[in-house]
């Protein structure tokens, strides 16, 4: 079979046999080695791995904040934009201590690579700042001081600052740490949309396994031998790479569920459909029952008007809790 003639999107960042880590005195403490990675235009890459594996160090090295131990980082638009600050913008885990500025002032920092000492903003600068604020939907926060913001709002403001830098590449180090579920989902969705609709290459170091699997175009997964496994999320799940690296305890990544032990030794046949079926199954399995098509006990879930009802041995129950009490006795 002839290989498909696919035009891959533009490379925004490439590493050639990159090794990262720290030099302390004469000794080298290498964290990751022989990395040949690519970030392309319009791609959201999630970079995952256990704590202490060198995620922040890789971000810092890619951003030019610290030198590689060997190999190199290439950003192909080098000729067009000689300054690194016009090619890569960052959201780090560093806390901002100068909280007496407004969100608008913080976002304005994104224009600094384009300004001289006099810091005079052009109309275009102002447009880009407003666009960054609009993209992150923080218009209502623009005049607030940073000390008035919640963690989630602060993170949005930091992302807006990075967007105002107007770079093809955006690197983020744990942008969803310490945030609640809503904010985490919002930020990952925002990053995915930015990648797909503004043709940016976005690299996110994160711990959010479930979110990364659902939003990332590509996953970088730190391997056991200081190497990196790359691929689309589904491939890495199915070939067992995730199980290998994270050593999940009691969690089945392929079904996305926690393992349940059928400790009651009782099988139940469950009849029903849709979400009602799935959540009833969840409740039964969580309580130690196993679901079997040919079991003696039969539970049926159905609608009675706009109310859900569960039928078991001729009795009707109006909540799963009632059903479980009846099943347990």
């Amino acid at each position, binding site marked *: 079979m002839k290989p498909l003639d696919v035009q891959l999107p533009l490379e925004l960042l490439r590493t050639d046999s990159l090794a990262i880590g720290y030099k302390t005195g004469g000794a080298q403490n290498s964290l990751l080695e022989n990395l040949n990675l690519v970030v392309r235009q319009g791609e959201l890459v999630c970079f995952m791995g256990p704590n202490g594996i060198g995620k922040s160090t890789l971000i*810092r090295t890619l951003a030019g904040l610290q030198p590689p131990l060997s190999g190199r980082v290439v950003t192909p638009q080098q000729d067009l934009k000689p300054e690194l600050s016009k090619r890569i*913008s960052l959201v780090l885990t560093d806390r*901002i201590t*100068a909280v007496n500025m407004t969100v608008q*002032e913080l976002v304005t920092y994104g224009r600094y690579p384009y300004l001289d*000492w006099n810091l005079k903003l052009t109309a275009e600068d102002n447009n880009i*700042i407003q666009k960054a604020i609009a993209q992150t939907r923080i218009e209502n926060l623009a005049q607030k001081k940073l000390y008035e913001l919640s963690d989630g709002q602060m993170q949005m403001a930091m992302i807006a600052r990075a967007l105002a830098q107007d770079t093809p590449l955006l690197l983020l180090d744990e942008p969803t740490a310490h945030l609640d579920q809503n904010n985490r989902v919002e930020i990952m969705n925002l990053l995915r949309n930015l990648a797909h609709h503004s043709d940016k290459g976005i690299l996110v170091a994160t711990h959010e396994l479930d979110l990364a699997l659902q939003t990332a175009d590509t996953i970088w997964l730190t391997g056991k031998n200081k190497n990196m496994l790359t691929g689309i999320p589904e491939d890495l799940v199915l070939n067992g790479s995730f199980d290998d690296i994270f050593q999940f305890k009691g969690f089945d990544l392929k079904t996305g569920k926690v393992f349940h032990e059928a400790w009651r030794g009782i099988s139940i046949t469950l009849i029903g459909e849709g979400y009602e079926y799935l959540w009833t199954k969840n409740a039964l399995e969580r309580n130690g029952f196993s679901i079997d098509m040919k079991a003696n006990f039969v539970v049926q879930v159905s609608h009675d008007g706009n109310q859900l009802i569960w039928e078991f041995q001729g009795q009707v129950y109006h909540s799963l809790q009632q059903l479980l009490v009846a099943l347990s006795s």
Partner: protein
Amino acid sequence: MKKIISLKPWLILSVLLVLLFLINVSLGSVQIPLMDTVSILFGGIPENPVWKDILIDFRLTKALTCVFAGGALALGGLLMQTLFRNPLAGPDVLGLSSGASLAVAILVMAATFMPPLLHGPFSIAIAASLGSALIFIVVLVVANRIKDNTSLLLIGLMIGAATSSLVSVLQFTSRSEDQHYFLVWTFGSMGGLNWQEIYLLGVVFLFGMTLSLLLSKALNAWLLGDNYAQALGIRIQRARTLIIICTSVLAGSVTAFCGPIAFVGLAVPHLARLVINTTNHKILVPGTVLTGAAVMLLCDTVAQLPGSSLVLPINAITSLIGAPVVIWVIVRSKKVRV
């Protein structure tokens, strides 16, 4: 972005500065009517020719020294608070003044067992500048190793304690007239500068202010931390060096000519932020300089004890005014911010 820079604080500051300047030059042990004072300042001939000499060579030089020294110290404090991202940083807290004191003490009091050091007109100024620069470099080297600001302040205090003990050893072994000369220097004084010295102080002050304004982009970026500053294209090593040079020249020269002035560097930037609520150094630098000049004129006016011929050490007044201000700022805003 619509930039709304309110003109009101600037108007208040400028009017206050002019008023304090006039009050400062019109008060003293010799009574000169206010109208004559103003007319002399604009080149008029007074009834009493002695008034002109008193005004031009004594009061005007003192008032100008206040403006330059107050502005320079306040600016030095602002630069250090930004550089360390610490609201409690200041030339005196981090041991810069102690460094200058040590250098001047060596120059003044160690002359007995050292070959006479250069005794030009600026020898004290040069010694004080070198002393504060040396301490600043030590503090900065330590700062690069220890990221924790509280530890850094403690180290600054320790350096201050160590230099003070060296100074007392010098005092113990030196002649009493040298001791007295040094003691008077440590009280601080805005008077006694000749026009040549004022020109020099003025040049240093203008140099520091121009450099700070040119550095305002780097200073602003510094507020986000070293990493973000670097990622925004600031050459941080160069900027850090320039900020250090600027601060030590500012603080060193003032300490040299006026003695170690306490609290102005620490307290004034907070007062300025209170009046002009911003983190943008392009606005903060001139605002802090204006506030510093006004505060120094006020302190000096109070130190003359209007209506008496007694003059108090300026340091006593700056501390008396500065300490409550810092406490008030902290209590009012619950938390001091850079």
